[in-house]
């Protein structure tokens, strides 16, 4: 589950947006006020993978009143989408400010070489252009830097035509931490941090969504 994935990556000091899983409407208001508006809200269910299709995501919620409405709507939509779905709760999450770009860090495990890390710019850059770079873990700081610089869209992270420059140094650190996480946890078959927001230089990065697939235990 997403929150379990986020718990694990938080342990490796990889910055994740503030979030909490709540079970009631009252609780959601309390947490939203703790985190501070605006917040995002998502229904957490192992049976609903495609949250956008099921309309169980609400972004930019700005008040207690809107939050209550969103809570009811998401619950109803979830039930309509899949009446059998097991509901774990609702994820209340800090609404991230706009970053310089959205990026992706992913991984797979190769039968001969172990964990392979993938880096790329999110959205169409990954989907259409397949503009990504790969490295076999472990990698050095220098190599992580080269990995970032070797995608074609790198200028977009580096202040292209007066745009703000992204925090490459923090991105390098996150890549290295992902490598450590993958080496420490051989049961992870796939890691998918998508999207990660990269902010202006000095302001770091933030993982918005995370998914980890573990090797199935043979009983």
């Amino acid at each position, binding site marked *: 589950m997403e929150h379990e994935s986020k718990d694990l990556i938080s342990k490796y000091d990889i910055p994740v947006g503030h979030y909490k899983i709540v079970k009631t409407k009252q609780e959601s208001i309390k947490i939203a006020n703790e985190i501070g508006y605006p917040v995002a809200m998502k229904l957490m269910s192992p049976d609903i993978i495609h949250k956008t299709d099921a309309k169980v995501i609400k972004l930019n919620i700005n008040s207690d009143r809107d939050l209550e409405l969103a809570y009811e709507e998401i619950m109803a939509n979830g039930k309509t989408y899949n009446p059998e779905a097991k509901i774990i709760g609702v994820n209340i999450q800090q609404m991230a400010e706009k970053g310089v770009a959205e990026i992706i860090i992913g991984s797979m495990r*190769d039968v001969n*070489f172990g964990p*392979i890390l993938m880096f790329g710019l999110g959205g169409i850059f990954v989907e259409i252009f397949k503009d990504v*770079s790969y*490295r*076999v873990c472990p990698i050095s700081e220098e190599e992580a830097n*080269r990995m970032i610089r070797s995608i074609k869209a790198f200028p977009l992270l580096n202040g292209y035509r007066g745009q703000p420059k992204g925090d490459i140094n923090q991105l390098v650190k996150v890549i290295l931490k992902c490598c450590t996480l993958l080496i420490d946890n051989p049961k992870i078959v796939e890691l998918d941090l998508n999207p990660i927001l990269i902010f202006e230089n000095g302001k770091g990065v933030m993982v918005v969504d995370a998914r980890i697939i573990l090797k199935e235990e043979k009983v």
Partner: protein
Amino acid sequence: MAKLDEFNGFFNPKIVAFYGASNMLQKFGSIHLTNLLSAGFQGKVIPIHPKEDEILGFKAYKNIKDVPDHVDLVVMAINPNLIINFLEDCGHKGVKHVIILSGGFLEVGNKEAQNKMKEVAEKYKIKIMGPNCSGEVVTPSINITHVPWPPRKGGVSIISQSGTYAVQPLIAINTKIGMGVSKIISVGNEVNTDLVDYLEALEEDDETTSIGIYFEAVRRGKEFIELVNRINKKKPIVIIPIGQTEAGSRSAKSHTAAITSPGYVIDSICEQTGAIRVRNSIDMLNLLNAFDSIPLPKGNRVAILTLGGGPGTLMSDLFESNGMKVPLLSKDLQEELKPWMPDTASTINPIDLTYSDDMQNFLNVLPEILLKSDEIDALIFYGLMGTEYFKNLVDVPDYMKDHDSIITMKNFGEMMEDFFIALFDEIIEFKEKYKKPIILTCYNTREEKFVAYLQDRGIPVYYPEEGVWTLIRMWQYSKFLQSINK
């Protein structure tokens, strides 16, 4: 113990026993035995045969245990069902190195037989090359493969998980590339020695200057990367990964029971280690040969010296779209070239002589002016007039044969030989003198004796585009070395 010493039985055997050689020369084992002797092997060969007392003129033994000498290396090309028992015999005899050419093990799903082989080998501390492999070449005088053309001695070594790619390119080396080889190793199913082991040995091997790897799958991925990373800083490593598509991967599995990694994994390993990935076997041989025989380019500026506009233009396009430059030459340098060129020629680079029968200018005077200048880092030629060229030129119909000019030309071709050799010797010296890579390109192959003459003395002679790609990749490696030595 150093890896190279551990493999001494493979690389430096004095007495080699053969299972599977018989008096029928077409048998696989007989071919291997014969090829070893044709390569000039000075040691002793001992056939092991259940019935015959003598094979191909050599005394044969029924059982290896009857052989009075110590046996350094055993070669097996027999029915796979017989191997385990013979391996036991070899163990008792104290044999430590066995090449098993026979297939029929893990690659056909016979895990049990392969495990048994491994067990027996461990029991007697026998190192096995194979099974399901195509043997080895160790220059100057060991050729235990089915291809009867051992290469000349040189610095290129190749480790191959494909038997065919290990040994069949010997034909191309013999007819086209003229490369100098140190070792070729076909690892087969890697029952107890693998790609990583041989790579370690080649790292220690002073005779090996560049290493090629035909790569399907490496079972010890982490060690492989560490090793490539370390070796590639001293000796360039060129990799051809095979089995990168679904069909390719399926084929690899039935071939050596290997599970391949996807192409992007191999690409990232090359990125991380600086090893060079090429896409076909000829590119690989051309590149390894160049690494072994000419200096690395220190920069990316190439001079093209050509007898003809087309190749000059195509080569320019290829260089410039792949990270190298064909720079305009300075006025001064052009002035220096001009007196030695025909009026119709272009001095700007490519330096195109169009046609010139003055081979001394083309092969010596102009190249030296270019190599001496600090405006270029590498030189590539297109065009070669050898004496075969002149001799063929006079292969005219009978009624022309007595014409004076034909007779003159024929004599000219024959007289030219010594003169041409002197010109080529000069080029070979330029390589050392100016420490810049020189590649000659043309469509002639080793049938033209001057192609062979140059290749055998370390000047690569390739087809035009092959020469270009070779330089491009040499520059890629040179740039890598510069980046790590910063």
